[in-house]
């Protein structure tokens, strides 16, 4: 089995916003050969199939944003190779690839994983019932409608009310599909500002909160969903299409196959503020770290990681190590999730599993308080919550894990803040 062997300076896996920004940051600074591997036929990542507006600083459409980021990366001198999949590792910094031109084994001095995130499908959510056609995720729906102009159905139920739900509504509208209902298990929908847009798009869509999909109905094609409401009541909504939205999970296969340690909360690679994973020379950026944040955030991480990769290549980077950062319930996860005192972090991303009204976030290490921050708004499940990162300087590199908790107004533990 012959593989063509090559070496480059940096391999970036994934040409989404994060990977392209990292490649650009590296190539702009003259870091030798920077090669981006993208398994899809077209580079750009998820924004390629998000035809709605809201990407980047100017809120352009996804495809516009994707085109710009690809152009910027190419303009910097990075190579972007599409149709090439990184299938596994042949060494700590060597990847095996498959593409129409054959098999390769590419060695590099550093590897950046920017493999993104996907939505959990119906099966992973353990939704019971039959296995009919017409059940999809937003990602598949968008590609069907925007990239392939396929017929989708006539009447849909959209499950989940994370911000991505509005992307589903927008694609359904484009496909001429009536939306019978938007359902969520949460006591209220979380579309936030996006919802305003969604309401406009999908005018008159009933939002059913506190409703769980108890069963999918139909043989051959889906014919309806059975919903269980908070009071135990069961109702049926007829439809020929069901879109499961949100519930993102990092696409961490390549990381795991390379033995890169994961963070138990995010299920993405554990990284420090310099986006360094537990494997020397392997970095990770974008939604593979924290499914899922806006494209601009992913791109910003890519740019920051480029600096860190350069530091690693010229040996000027800070020492590795540092304690893990853990969160306590109702917080679900934090990223980055390793604290290195010499590595400044400008912000951490967190998630909560419950709505919190103006919470106070408290950071401690071995009982010592490092930071306390008041969040002047409601924090909702599946929505971004940011924590400032200056406190990492005062972390004891040899101490125990750093803990982030939700404190009461006076710094007590978990007060009246939850609802």
């Amino acid at each position, binding site marked *: *089995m*012959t*593989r063509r062997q090559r070496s480059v300076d940096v391999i970036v896996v994934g040409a989404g916003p994060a990977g392209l920004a990292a490649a650009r940051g590296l190539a702009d600074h003259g870091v030798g050969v920077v090669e981006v591997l993208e*398994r899809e036929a077209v580079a750009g990542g998820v924004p390629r199939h998000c035809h709605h507006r809201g990407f980047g600083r100017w809120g352009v459409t996804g495809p516009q944003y994707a085109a710009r980021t690809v152009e910027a990366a190419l303009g910097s001198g990075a190579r972007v190779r599409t*149709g090439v*999949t990184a*299938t596994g590792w042949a060494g700590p910094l060597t990847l095996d690839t*498959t*593409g*129409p*031109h*054959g*098999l390769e084994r590419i060695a590099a001095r550093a590897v950046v994983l920017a493999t993104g995130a*996907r*939505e*959990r*499908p*119906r*099966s*992973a959510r*353990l939704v*019971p*019932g*039959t*296995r009919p*056609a017409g059940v*999809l*995720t937003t*990602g*598949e729906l968008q*590609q*069907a409608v925007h*990239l*392939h102009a*396929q017929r989708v159905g006539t009447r849909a139920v959209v499950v989940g009310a994370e911000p991505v739900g509005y992307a589903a509504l927008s694609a359904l509208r484009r496909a001429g599909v009536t939306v019978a209902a938007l359902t969520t298990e949460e006591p209220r929908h979380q579309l936030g500002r996006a919802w305003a847009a969604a309401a406009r798009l999908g005018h008159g869509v009933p939002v059913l909160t506190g409703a769980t999909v*108890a*069963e*999918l109905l139909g*043989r051959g094609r889906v014919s309806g969903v059975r919903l269980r409401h908070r009071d135990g009541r069961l109702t049926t909504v007829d439809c020929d299409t069901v879109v499961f939205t949100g519930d993102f*999970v990092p696409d961490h*296969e390549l990381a*795991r196959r390379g033995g890169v340690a994961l963070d138990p909360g995010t299920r993405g690679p554990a990284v420090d503020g310099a986006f360094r994973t537990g494997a020397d020379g392997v970095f990770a950026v974008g939604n593979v770290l924290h499914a899922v944040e806006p494209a601009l955030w992913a791109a910003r991480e890519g740019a920051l990681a480029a600096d860190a990769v350069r530091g690693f290549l010229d040996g000027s980077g800070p020492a590795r190590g540092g304690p893990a950062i853990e969160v306590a319930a109702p917080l679900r996860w934090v990223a980055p999730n390793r604290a290195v005192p010499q590595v400044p972090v400008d912000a951490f991303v967190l998630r909560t599993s419950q709505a919190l009204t103006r919470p106070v976030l408290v950071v401690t290490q071995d009982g010592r308080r490092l930071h306390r921050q008041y969040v002047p708004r409601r924090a909702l499940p599946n929505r971004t919550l940011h924590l400032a990162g200056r406190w990492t300087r005062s972390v004891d590199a040899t101490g125990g894990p750093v803990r982030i908790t939700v404190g009461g107004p006076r710094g007590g533990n978990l007060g009246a803040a939850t609802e």
Partner: protein
Amino acid sequence: MTVTSKGPLCPERQMSPRPYDVAVVGAGVVGTAIARELARHPHLHIALLEASADVGDGTSKANTAILHTGFDAVPGSLEARLVREGQRLLAAYAAESGIPVEPVGALLVAWDDAQLDALPGLLEKAGRNGYDAARIIGADETRAREPHLGPGVLGALDVPGESIICPWTTTLAYATQAVRSGVELHLNTRVETVSSEGGDHLLATSRGALRARFLVNAAGLNADVLDRLVLGAGDFTVTPRRGQLIVFDELARDLVRHILLPVPTALGKGVLVAPTVYGNVLLGPTAEDLDDKEATGTTADGLDGLLTKGRRILPALLDEEVTAVYAGLRAATEHDDYRIRCHKERRYVTVGGIRSTGLTASMAIAAHVAGLIAEADAGLDLEEPVEPAPVHMPNLGEAFPRPYQRADLIATDPAYGTIVCHCERVTRGEIRDALISTVPPASLEGLRRRTRARGGRCQGFYCGAAVRALHEGRGEWGPE
């Protein structure tokens, strides 16, 4: 080669078409195996009739995919014999046809005293079934061989001969070889009534009438219904026994090395944890007696129960992503054995009650049925079978090189280097090949069973629309 899926079976112009020598009803793993076996007699004009739009679309697509040794069968039963013979035949056939099989072996793990006490009886039963390789091992050895087992393991029965196999490729290989040998496969053809005319069977189907000299009933869950149609009475009733299963992602594969079978006791039969040839891990099945032969849905209670049991067996499994949930229906009857009966005077064979071992036994069932037919109807002349041209099926198994890993194949055709389904690493070349194959898929589900496309952890988030585009555009690659 004839595969039809629409239009009348007998075009109007052709007033009296040549009757079939044999019609086989049901293209599951059993019906296709029988058709393939009979096709070794090239002079026979054979029809294989299937109600669904694809072969293997009933119970044969939804099982636990184990090639059993038959160590725990009822000694002396027909099932015990056919499983034992079938295992040998299918293992050999798989090796020559490219059906993935992995001889991983099984451990029946005992978690309590009742289960531990049951092991010697099972060992003795294995002996009576002619299986001598089993042995009882202690807790330490069990744990050493399966380091991820949950706490509380007391010991195990080691059955090294149990294997995992691809059920989809098996059915498809039989069907492909049958069709290439001249069997006419008619899909979307439900047999509705059967009458007899001049000694022949006259079948009324959803696609019109058809005449056959000999009839084989391999209708799975409907074998009892067909029996009544033909004979006016039947000697068994099928009670579907549902088995729900959860499939875990390939990243869970390293957690388990053997098929972990439950130890059956008076208190019930537990669930198994088994690797699949595709690199996944299965958890299941449940066992629920129902009366609806179409109840292939999963239930919240069923899935919850599986997770509870799975957590005990292999705690780390529950941290992995689930790629699929499904349910299959076993054709259980009131009898404790297969119901294979030849009604010589009616030139009719019923192959009923093929419950939970039909995949393994399929080739032996087919040989047995061919023997019964030869005995019942000397006029068919089943004296000298010829070997059909071998088939070579596309490999879906992880233990063998897949096209995306083969530089040689990609060099001949770059389509094998173009990955379309990323989770399962299925290439454009494989999808094309399936779409223009002898027995092409009728749906995306059928395409998945032939290629694995869309069958992975993302269930189409990445590739669903692209795979559908290839499926809908299949005309590009050949006749529809």
